[in-house]
């Protein structure tokens, strides 16, 4: 049963109907069943959830059906059912994880402000635009 190795996007056909984790370019993690793929690696994810990680905690938000435009995908991989059952992480409620995420973002922003200020005092100016998602086109 040695199938010839498929190249590029055709590899994805092997992953059809499997439970996949998809990491997007904006940093979000989606988990769902891959139902369809095309030549641009556009994906259809069924029964998808968005998983948010903060430290050793995570929370799942049910999202339904996704059509993901291929160019926004960083990586994807099959989820190992056995390993999934004993994750070294703890699941918390959606509200809790969203709170934690908000706090983490605020802390990051504070940190960023300090860095910018310190650099400014040394005569260096960080380009504020680089921190936005607008350069993702």
């Amino acid at each position, binding site marked *: 049963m040695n199938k010839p190795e498929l190249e590029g996007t055709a590899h994805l056909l092997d992953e059809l109907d499997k439970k996949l984790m998809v990491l997007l370019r904006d940093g979000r993690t989606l988990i769902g069943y891959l139902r369809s793929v095309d030549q641009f690696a556009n994906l*259809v994810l069924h029964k998808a959830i968005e998983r948010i990680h903060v430290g050793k905690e995570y929370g799942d938000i049910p999202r339904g059906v996704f059509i993901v435009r291929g160019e926004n995908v960083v990586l994807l991989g099959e989820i190992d059912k056995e390993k999934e059952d004993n994750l070294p992480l703890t699941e918390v409620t959606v509200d809790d994880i969203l709170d934690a995420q908000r706090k983490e973002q605020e802390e990051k922003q504070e940190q960023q402000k300090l860095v910018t200020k310190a650099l400014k005092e040394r005569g260096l100016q960080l380009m504020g635009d680089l921190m936005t998602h607008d350069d993702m086109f």
Partner: protein
Amino acid sequence: MLPLSLLRTAQNHPMLVELKNGETYNGHLVSCDNWMNINLREVICTSRDGDKFWRMPECYIRGSTIKYLRIPDEVIDMVKEETIVKNRGREQKSGRGGGGGGDRQNQRNRPAARGNFGGRGGSKPGGQGGRNPPFQKKKQ
């Protein structure tokens, strides 16, 4: 069923479109093309931080600016049904026209193509499609 065919099936259904810049657009899909360019109706646009909202009667979104689309669960079920119905139709048609001989290839392809167009016509507002009008009523 390719991702873009699924999107075509989702015509007249509500959906959420997130752009690469983080803005989201909630509305009913009017039409889409092979480049994922889409037209929405009754749209609510939300800013990236989710703090500003705009309502607009319709909008056009260029496919290349889209990050992802979220569509209702039932659209996938519709696709499954449609594929079954289509296959059934194809079996019957090819069964009847089986003895055709040289022109057989064409005969087999024609019914499928007609099925496609029928589906698309039905999902346009005002079209006389069998499946979509009830859905539309339920949503509004």
